[in-house]
């Protein structure tokens, strides 16, 4: 009897030792984390354009009510590879080898040759891509800006070269689709094409762009209409005006937004920054 007891005790001891040992092996060295989340400012002064905002009819909305867009400033072009490199230099937590998986999947800055080296053959002034929403947000914070809202972006997207709202022009959507259909266009440098009515470049010809509230595009599980909002699937259900039913370019943008998650890194998805403003249009010239 006594023997049995002893052996049981010994077995327990051995097991516990092994188990505890094993766990201890797993223990990682404690890292000194000096508030790793805080964003260090990056000195990048991209020209911003004053957009007066106003009432606009969102292309796709549950309500199809007009929305008021307050005046805002928008980067005149997307953020470039070189600028993002400056950002990760100042913010090690956003380097490829350091980034937290909760913020970026494994395609983050895919093809960069290292933490601080752009992809081979990448133009420094081409738009940065393979960027998750979280990193775009952090970049914007580091330059004292923010991401544009979906409404701000779409308000600006109504403009063609000549007018602030070209949505009723037949050619408007066709021209954008022509740009959208070109593959690998994200490798071109920014500002090689003409500006729109507001003086903003590259809204359509290089990349898709993150917006702050990209996740406001619901294609299903809408709390008001129950399951499976049919809007995006049935063309006529989503568009709010007759002209918009033919606005295939807008459908493509909304389809893209509905398909992405904030930690995705995609070959042709980048971003630009925006900012609140209180200045009036008359001061625009001085910007």
């Amino acid at each position: 009897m006594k023997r049995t007891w002893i052996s049981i005790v010994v077995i327990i001891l051995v097991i516990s030792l092994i188990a505890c040992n094993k766990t201890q092996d797993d223990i990682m060295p404690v890292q000194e984390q000096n508030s790793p989340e805080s964003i260090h400012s990056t000195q990048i002064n991209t020209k911003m354009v004053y957009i007066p905002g106003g009432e606009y009819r969102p292309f796709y909305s549950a309500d199809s009510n007009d929305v008021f867009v307050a005046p805002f400033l928008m980067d005149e072009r997307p953020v470039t590879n070189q600028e993002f490199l400056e950002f990760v230099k100042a913010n090690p937590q956003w380097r490829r080898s350091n980034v937290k998986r909760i913020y970026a999947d494994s395609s983050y800055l895919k093809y960069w040759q290292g933490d601080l080296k752009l992809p081979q053959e990448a133009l420094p002034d081409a738009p940065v891509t393979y960027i998750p929403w979280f990193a775009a947000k952090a970049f914007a914070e580091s330059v004292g800006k923010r991401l544009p809202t979906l409404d701000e972006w779409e308000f600006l997207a109504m403009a063609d070269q000549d007018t602030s709202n070209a949505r009723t022009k037949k050619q408007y959507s066709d021209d954008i689709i022509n740009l959208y259909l070109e593959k690998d266009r994200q490798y071109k440098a920014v500002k090689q094409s003409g500006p729109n009515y507001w003086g903003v470049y590259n809204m359509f010809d290089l990349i898709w762009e993150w917006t702050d509230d990209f996740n406001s595009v619901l294609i299903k599980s809408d709390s008001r209409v129950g399951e499976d909002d049919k809007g995006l699937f049935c063309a006529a259900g989503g568009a709010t005006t007759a002209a918009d039913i033919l606005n295939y370019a807008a459908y493509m943008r909304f389809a893209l937004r509905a398909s992405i998650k904030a930690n995705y890194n995609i070959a042709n998805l980048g971003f630009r920054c925006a900012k609140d403003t209180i200045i009036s249009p008359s001061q625009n010239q001085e910007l």
Partner: protein
Amino acid sequence: MKTLHYFLAVAFLMISCQQNNNSKVKKDLPSNSIFQLSSEWQNQDGKTVHLKDLQGKTLVVVMIYTTCKTACPVLVSKMQLIESKISRQDIKDVSMVLVSIDPETDTPEFLKDFAIKNNMDAPQWVFLRSNEAATQEFANVLSMKYKKISPMDFSHSNIISIFNPQGQLIMQDEGLEIDVDKIVNTVHGVLKG
């Protein structure tokens, strides 16, 4: 002699495991853990908390707003059903977390009130609210879509998520006909390790 041996063994076990526990706390969080988020939240008692404070328990998480009249009541009742199907022994290792997408309305007092009214005031129920930015960030971590469509109304996706005690996403189920038993089984699976 026998007793001594036994005593020693138990003592040793206790000590070694205690050490173990201590080290676990210091152990680095997984890179994909929601506890990596540094945002500040308030719970239904008005106490400021971080997501990290939820570490160590299996989490069942849903985002709702308490004034919702359509989808959220369904989600809340699903959460209640899930909670009721976990044994009272196991529930100690589980937090049922409801995160508000309407922090403006859902003040701590409001949430507390909601918790009491809906009989969700046991310790396993955690209600959280923060600012717009943190709410949006958290929603994006859950791949949750939402949009304010009027001052009191939101469109949103209906997702229940399960996280393990290290804050890693284990599963998500989406839609109003969420499979409660599948979620309960998954929770039990996580609890068993």
